[in-house]
């Protein structure tokens, strides 16, 4: 399976005077479209994040905006390295690693819940001691989970419709991971669960079983919604305090209060008391035009829109680049998903196919979720826009996912050209380069 595994070396394999750049480009394989998409999104990210951190920089760094720009560029650099190195890895390694990573992620999630840092209310983060960077353990767990799902789905295809042999081994890790993510980050847990179910559906798990799972999952959600409806009182001056009191009590029970409040805001939100962030995001969207927005760096909403550089970056994109810009970003994500599906189609091996599909879907769904929050189709949740939101652990995990997808793509390419290998070795290389 290893590339260029010939006894004798070719001239092209010998490092030449053409320099490092040429050789890196030559060694870079995988789906060229996805590479292109990564680059487009990264460039967009630099532009928008640089603009959106303006007020953050003003608040925290005496207007030193460049700090965030350089930070973002550094993240890009590290991210690209991650993609590059992961795409060089033979993806079969991931099959073996999937179980290990999943096993690691569970204590990590528990640790986070117990001792994690609080950023924006939920304890979703832990600090990595040496590099002193907080990272959201759920991002790690998600990748591990999807890798594991791909593995199980590919291995159990024969018995996939069977409850014991097919369904249980797939659903148990999903339930564990989601249950551990949920207390701190309900929306993320829901998103992970939904994506998992989607993958199970694609992976031919019995629809009956899936519907059963959904039904069970709906119970807590229904509980929250009904709580929201029950505790909600129309705005009457003296009732207001009572409602707040109930909510405050609920806040005591983990993050239940926040969930209920957000649901209420979403269900009953009139113009006066819709959440601040939503209001600001809508203002941002309203400020952009159809074709062109306010132009790069001219956002006004970034000044008050909390997390403008992160959860609400899509609103800023529309403000600065117009609806057209927003549509273009959507198109890019759809193209990405399409390429992911193409890899699935072309990949002869079950695990690789599922892996590419799973990771492509999860990224695309995350993007859609973020955009849906930005236009207020769903309640406010803390989901980033993959590759565009300001750097952080989720950015790096996104890069890791893309690296894995490209690793599958590279192996697919290799497999396609493999039959030629023994006879005409030199052509292999030109083929790859010309593809």
């Amino acid at each position, binding site marked *: 399976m290893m590339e260029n595994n010939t006894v004798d070396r070719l001239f092209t394999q010998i490092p030449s005077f053409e320099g490092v750049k040429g050789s890196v480009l030559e060694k870079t394989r995988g789906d060229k479209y996805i590479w292109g998409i990564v680059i487009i999104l990264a460039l967009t990210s630099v532009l928008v994040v640089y603009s959106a951190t303006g*007020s953050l920089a*003003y*608040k925290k760094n005496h207007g030193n905006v460049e700090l965030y720009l350089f930070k973002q560029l550094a993240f890009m650099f590290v991210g690209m390295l991650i993609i590059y190195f992961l795409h060089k890895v033979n993806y079969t390694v991931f099959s073996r690693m999937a179980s290990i990573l999943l096993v690691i992620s569970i204590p990590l999630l528990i640790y986070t819940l117990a001792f994690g840092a*609080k950023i924006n209310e939920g304890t979703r983060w832990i600090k990595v001691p040496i590099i002193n960077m907080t990272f959201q353990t759920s991002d790690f767990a998600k990748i591990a989970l999807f890798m594991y799902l791909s593995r199980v789905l590919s291995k159990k*295809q024969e018995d996939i419709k069977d409850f014991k042999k097919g369904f249980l081994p797939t659903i148990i890790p999903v339930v564990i991971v989601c249950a551990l993510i949920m207390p701190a980050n309900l929306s993320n847990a829901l998103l992970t669960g939904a994506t998992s179910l*989607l993958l199970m*559906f*694609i*992976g*031919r798990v019995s629809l009956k079983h899936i519907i059963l799972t959904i039904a069970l999952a709906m119970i807590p959600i229904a509980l929250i919604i009904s709580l929201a409806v029950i505790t909600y009182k129309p705005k009457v001056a003296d009732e207001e305090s009572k409602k707040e009191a109930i909510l405050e009590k609920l806040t005591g029970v983990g993050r239940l209060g926040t969930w209920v409040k957000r649901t209420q805001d979403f269900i009953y939100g009139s*113009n006066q008391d819709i959440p601040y962030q939503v*209001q600001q995001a*809508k*203002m941002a*969207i*309203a*400020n*952009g*035009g*159809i074709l062109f927005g306010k132009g790069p760096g001219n956002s*006004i*909403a970034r*000044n*008050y829109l*909390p997390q403008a550089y992160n959860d609400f970056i899509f609103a800023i994109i*529309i403000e600065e680049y117009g*609806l057209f810009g*927003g*549509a273009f970003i*959507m198109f890019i994500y*759809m193209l990405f*998903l*399409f390429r992911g*599906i193409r890899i*699935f*189609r072309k990949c002869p091996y079950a695990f690789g*196919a599922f892996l590419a*599909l799973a990771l492509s*879907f999860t990224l*695309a*769904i995350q993007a*859609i979720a973020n*955009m*849906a929050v930005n*236009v*207020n*189709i769903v309640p406010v949740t803390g989901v980033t826009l993959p590759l565009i939101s300001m750097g952080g652990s989720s950015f790096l995990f996104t890069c890791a996912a893309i690296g894995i997808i490209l690793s599958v793509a590279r192996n697919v390419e290799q497999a396609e050209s493999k039959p030629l290998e023994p006879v005409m070795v030199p052509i292999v290389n030109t083929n790859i380069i010309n593809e």
Partner: protein
Amino acid sequence: MDIKKDILWRVYMIYIVIIGVCILIFSKAVYIQQVEGAKWRNLGDTLHQRTQEIEAERGTIYSEDGEMLSTSIPYFDVYIDFNADGLRDKKGKLFKDNIDSLSIGLANLFKDKSSDEYKRILKQGYKEENRYFSLKKSINYSQYLEMKKLPLVRLGKNKSGFITDSKSLRLNPYQMLAFRTIGLARDTNKVGLELAYDTLLKGKNGSRVVRYVGGGISMPIDEDEQEDAQNGKDIVSTINVFIQEVTEQSLLRMMRENEAEHGCAIVMETATGKIKAIANLGRGRDTSNAKNGGYWEDNNYALFATEPGSTFKLATMFALLEDKKVNLHSTIDLQGGKWELNDKLIVYDAEEHGKNQVSVKEAFELSSNVGMAKLAWFNYQNNPSQFTKRLHQLNMDMLTGIDLVGERNPVIHKPEEKGWNNRSMLPWMAFGYSLQVTPLRTLTLYNAIANKGKMMKPYLVSSVKEEGSLVKEFNPTVLNDKICSDETLSQLSECLKGVCSEPGATGYALFKGSPYKVAGKTGTSLVQDRTTSYVDKVYQSSFVGYFPADNPQYTICVVIKNKKGAKKYFGAAVAGPVFKEIADRLYTTYVKDVANNNYVVAKKDSSRYHSILHRDDIRQLAPFAGVGFNSTTTAEWFEVNKNNKSQEYAVTNNENNLMPLLKGMSAKDAVFLCDEKGIKVNIKGKGKVTAQSISPNSPVEKGKSVELFLN
């Protein structure tokens, strides 16, 4: 392949669903922007934009010699939000870890509480979850910077909860010096120059539109439409820090010695009417100023009208002479010092001197009340308004018009007024009773005599500046170009000189042996005011005069209200010495050298050639220059004479406030020596010091500047 196809249709189905969601999202965005757009856009502006005032910086009041008398300094109030996220995180780990080092840091920085006390109040505040705990008020900028470096605090507002509110406080670097005249820039009830020039000093606040970013931070938008604050203009007062210091100290010393109630001393530049110094000391309500013996500049006594007593006799003399009722040699019977106008109206002199026939000039010099009362009575009883018109001619019934708010109107009764009684008014007015004038008014009168009959308006501000460049200049104002005939003028100055030079005159003893001549008048009057009546025997001592008598440079008025039963109360004994002390200092500093006008030694005298070198320098140079150097002594300075022999050279007295002898030194050494004593140096020429504008061994204050002439 069957399986793969089975999977593929699912994939495509979901792909289509996702695209559907995308379309939904896009449609919602279009809806928000195109349908609801106007509403959101309008909301945006009203929600975040606000007009914010930009506070103008208040101008600085400078002294004549460029020292800051009153300026605005940023100060900070420190608060702690004990509910700051950083402090509450992890059950207050950050707070607990840092409280010890923070308490020590705060105690070291502010030195007002021990570290244990700080720790206690911090813990208390933390326990109470106080969100706006006032830690310390009014710390200055350098303390603020230091505080920012302390543990916890350096982590920033969100982590430490430390909040600082900046404000601008008015600072008087010279503290008590002319404090009342410079004034108070408090929000309400300003006084002094701060009030009189408030419109200039305060500037104009600007405004700008800001957008709130959250977290209480705002960002200015649209800098073009910003209306900048116009900072207040600076004003340069006529007050000279050196003269003010001399005046204030002299007054303070006498007042402490005599435990006086309140007093003032004003120094006016004769030719211009510039107030060079104005000291006002009283006990005030706040007697905690132990440092100054309980005295403080609590009121502008120079602007308060009181019965002046004998210093007013100058005005009486002026009327008599100008109306040619008498000349200096006319005689008058002092009747031994007691004159009974009738049973009830008896005029006494200060003491029963037993003198009878004396000249008018002598009567003035002796400060005889009987003399003045009789002269006025017999010359004006039939036409009292002739007398009061003469007083009006001297502006005695008017404000001086000094550029301060709060000058009290003088009280000079007139025959035309209801209730005028010749008998009970005229003789008393002649020696300064039954009327009230301010010390400043009296000063202005005496200055007019000093200034050859030209009455100058007293003023305190000479120019207005903006960022160092001149905006407006105030020139001396003449109130009356010639108050009297030359003849009267010379007679009056004759009288005033006599007071200070004729044996037996009230000021004779005081100025005996003075290197300069003084012309002036003593005054001792019984005080009757809101709290005191004549029978209490509280005296107001005053001395007004000018010097040098032949070429007047400065006119000084000293008025001190004594305590009840003070041992010393004569004008010559209380106010006179203050005058003399001020005059002495001014004379050595300004007048003497100006008068001699020759403190540049132009002659080069090789026979007296000498150099003054510092011990270290001479030790290094000696071997090369062939100078014999005797290093057994500990002297610091050595004189090298023509024969290349070095010898000890006493440069200066040990007392720090004496001017060193700098002659023969290099500029470097001279500057070094002056610098040590805090004296500023102005150098003219090159080479070695040949002359200095402050004579050696004369007292000199820190911050004073000396001119050195080099050959």
